[in-house]
């Protein structure tokens, strides 16, 4: 799965957690989940749990802490999928 494919899937994962659907359509590597998509920081753990199920990976807590932007999410997911 390439970065674009992961990004497209990520939009589906993030969908229930943001009210800003317009911003969601336009996300790129630099999009910050909390600052730009206005996601409640408490929900970041839910996004990680959903991403684990979506990509069939396990994301450890240290990696999860890095997942603050769309780009870093894709980095972590790609690394985990490669294992």
């Amino acid at each position, binding site marked *: 799965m390439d970065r674009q494919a992961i990004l497209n899937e990520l939009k589906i994962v993030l969908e*229930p*957690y*943001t*009210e800003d659907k317009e911003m969601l359509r336009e996300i790129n590597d630099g999009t910050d989940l909390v600052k730009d998509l206005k996601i*409640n920081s*408490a*929900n970041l*753990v*839910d996004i990680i*749990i959903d991403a684990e199920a979506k990509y069939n990976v396990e994301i450890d807590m240290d990696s999860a802490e890095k997942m603050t932007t769309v780009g870093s999410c894709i980095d972590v997911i790609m690394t985990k999928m490669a294992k």
Partner: protein
Amino acid sequence: MGRRIVITGLGVVSPNGVGVPEFLHSIQHGVSGIRFMPQYEALNFNCQVAGMPYFEWDTLKNYVSEITFHGLKGKAIGYGIKAALDAWTDAGNLIGNDQTLWETGCVFGSSVADVEVVKNVITRVDSGEAKKLGSRVVEQLMNSSVAAYISGRLGFGNKIVANSAACATGTQAILMGYEYIKHGLARRMLVGSCEHVDPYIFGAFDSMRILSRKFNQSPEKASRPMSQSACGFVPGSGAGALILEDLEFALERKATIYAEIAGGANNSGGQRRGGSMTAPGSPGIIRCITDALADSGIGAESIDLISGHLTATAADKMEIQNWGLALGRNGRNFPAINSLKSMIGHCLSAAGSIEAIAVVLQIWHQFVHPNINLEDPNPEILETINMECLPTTMIKKEINTVAKANFGFGDVNTCLIFSKYNNG
């Protein structure tokens, strides 16, 4: 005479009607909300019927944000949110302001946290998957969950409390809201309660052998308060919510006033003299009713209608005797008395709020709802009161004052006195 507290909004999720218009129609026409539960047959319960609201879960999308809706699992929480927000809009208020309403608070009770939510936690934790639970579980495990969801949605900034007093929870929540306003601590309170009797709670009651088990084939006949063939109660689920306001506050904003709360009392018999963990004692009940009357300043002779606790157990007879002793009235002189439980079963902590809404509707529309399934009134009850006091079809009559009581496990009692709003 101090502050007067009035009721300006109603919201209900009842086994026989979701929303006030449907609920009103049902209570006027004696429509039962008790249905057969195939799952309960499969689980080998003695009682296989329940009062279960026809609740469309997706309706909640119109009540909470998409983000809140996603991950919302607790049924009782859903019922509570719908009833509360309906009451709020019924009172002429808008949802979605960005202000904190410092003058408005909330007392919203329940008897147990949602066991289905608890089950999910137990399953995940026991299989070593606690980290899969996510961020939304704790907020739904809290006893204050419903109060927190409601208050957050509406921006309430006064006291936010979740009360719990078993089957007296609903009436107690109303009384607590009334007292906060009466003491000048808040100007408006959203009060109510909710209950979802899932198979786990139901099973625990079933094991006590206090549920109706002889009418599994005819569910609408299963809840039979005050009848000779009464053989236990039918658990029900739902929620009720009311908006209480300081009269001046309500008049300032030109609110519709459905009724007034004239007074109330909440006590316990101390689990002495007939009272126990599971049964109310007569001295506590009588004292609760007379204290409520004293608080209201209304004489016992003015009570037009009693909305009883009357669950359809052996306690019905004792309850009626206690009402007679507390009011000093019996025979033909006894007020009309009805039990909403004949139609919806016993909604446990939600009973008080749903039944109080029925009381307010009977005052607002001037009628007495029927007791259904009372073809065979208990002869021992008829030794205390006249059959004319037990309407089996709707009666249109002048209703100025209604006494409403509920009694809960732990020997806790609550009695409220409602009156028609009189602007004099």
